[in-house]
């Protein structure tokens, strides 16, 4: 039982309403994504371990973070460049505890009174941060806004002024750079898409649209493995800007652009890449873009060998840390990152022998948008 008090305004009815809200959105997201497994990494097992940890520890961590800085201030920081307050992390800090809770509920391991208090703290922190991230426009997630997420709207004029029209040869070079960075981030982040985040559509003149893609934590970081593989990456964070013609797109709450047509690259009219590591926009010229692509390619090969050589437990611990630490950027913005315990696994050890052996995606009872996350009885 947590020692946390109930959160004012978050009674059982309110909490159940928010559970239902997340249930509908997240069920739809997972229906689109479906299978989530890799022959390299035991993804489902590490996700479940991490989500148990999130359910049991996020309420206390969120309280400690909020004592240092208001969730509104932290959420608003995501509208600046180069940090990791973004769409997928905001989705995750509410949904990871709910996933862990579902596992515990199915095992009959929930205390419903305690559960209501935990979720009250999670939802309060999340809703205050998410509202500020979205500019207090009355929405909390992309799903509330028909797939629109435009946190960097204040920077659009500066970004577009730097974008350079491209021809087909240049398009192929940019496509490869983008693909290498995307693929590299997936591997560095143990098959999560949190290493890069899309935003938009930012409407431009003539019906054109701007898609922004921020790649974060490219170099050495709190990911222990990065110090063996990512030391040659010349930037810690870069922002790619694609000016699109004849493309419609929306952003999911996983932070991924879904485009029509699906292959949007032939429709890129202009492009720019910025070093956003310092929180501003420093244009990266073509030579340094090529150097970045080469470094990402080399680092990816090293990273693959390293992961392939890991034991199953090492992979599980690394992947669980990636997921569990989605809250860590919020603590970093609040200045309490180093004072909090991010060790994982820690509070899932009672279930670890069972969870660690899971292969593939477990077959559960058929769920719907109403029942993806169970309500408090």
């Amino acid at each position, binding site marked *: 039982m947590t020692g946390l008090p109930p959160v004012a305004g978050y009674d059982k009815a309110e909490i159940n309403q928010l559970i239902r809200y997340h249930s509908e959105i997240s069920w739809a997201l997972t229906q689109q994504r479906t299978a989530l497994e890799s022959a390299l990494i035991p993804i489902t097992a590490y996700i479940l371990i991490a989500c148990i940890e999130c359910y049991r520890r996020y309420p206390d961590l969120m309280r400690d973070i909020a004592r240092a800085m208001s969730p509104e201030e932290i959420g608003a920081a995501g509208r600046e460049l180069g940090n990791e307050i973004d769409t997928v992390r905001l989705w995750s800090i509410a949904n990871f505890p709910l996933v862990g809770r579902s596992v515990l509920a199915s095992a009959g391991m929930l205390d419903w009174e305690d559960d209501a208090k935990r979720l009250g703290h999670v939802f309060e922190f999340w809703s205050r941060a998410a509202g500020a991230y979205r500019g207090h426009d009355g929405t909390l997630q992309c799903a509330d806004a028909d797939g629109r997420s435009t946190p960097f709207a204040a920077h659009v004029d500066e970004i577009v002024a730097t974008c350079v029209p491209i021809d087909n040869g240049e398009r192929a070079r940019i496509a490869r750079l983008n693909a290498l960075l995307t693929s590299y981030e997936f591997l560095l982040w143990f098959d999560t898409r949190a290493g890069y985040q899309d935003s938009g559509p930012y409407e431009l003149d003539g019906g054109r649209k701007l898609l922004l893609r921020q790649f974060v934590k490219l170099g050495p970081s709190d990911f222990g493995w990065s110090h063996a593989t990512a030391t040659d990456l010349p930037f810690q964070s870069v922002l790619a800007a694609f000016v699109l013609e004849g493309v419609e797109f929306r952003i999911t709450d996983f932070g991924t652009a879904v485009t029509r047509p699906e292959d949007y690259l032939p429709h890129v009219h202009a492009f720019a890449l910025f070093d956003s590591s310092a929180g501003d926009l420093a244009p990266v010229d073509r030579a340094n873009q090529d150097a970045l692509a080469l470094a990402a390619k080399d680092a990816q090969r090293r990273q*693959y060998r390293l992961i392939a050589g890991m034991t199953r437990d090492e992979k599980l611990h690394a992947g669980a840390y990636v997921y569990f630490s989605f809250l860590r950027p919020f603590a970093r913005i609040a200045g309490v990152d180093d004072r909090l315990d991010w060790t994982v696994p820690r509070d899932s050890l009672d279930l670890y022998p069972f969870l660690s052996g899971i292969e593939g995606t477990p077959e559960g009872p058929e769920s719907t948008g109403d029942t993806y996350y169970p309500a408090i009885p």
Partner: protein
Amino acid sequence: MGAGAEIGTGQIGTGQIGTGQIGTGQIGTGTRVFDAAPVRGTWRRLDSPADVLELMDTSALGVVACVRDAGATFLAPIFDDLTAVVCLSGTPLSHIGIVSREYQVPCVMGATLTETPQDGAEVEVDCSGPTAVVRHR
């Protein structure tokens, strides 16, 4: 090999296939990630990281990789050399689908095969129609 029991569930001919796509040598269908002209390559079933490392250390050029799972990482270091990917699970929004779109490597998701080619067989992956088709060549 080793996935033969998982595939071949007979979805071909159930009306899900787009017009004009059923042709000689068809061995499978699935959901395309993006519209792409037919490509030809050498079939290779990849089951373990060791299979990927072998190609990473030699060459994956011209390979049509068949994989079971829809994670993005398994093919990571060889993705940009591949001719196409045939994934036996997932959807275009699965991680492997997202990465294939960025690499512009034609990719078939949730593929159902009526026949499993031998490694080294020449195949065609056609993502030009509403349903992706895999054919023997």
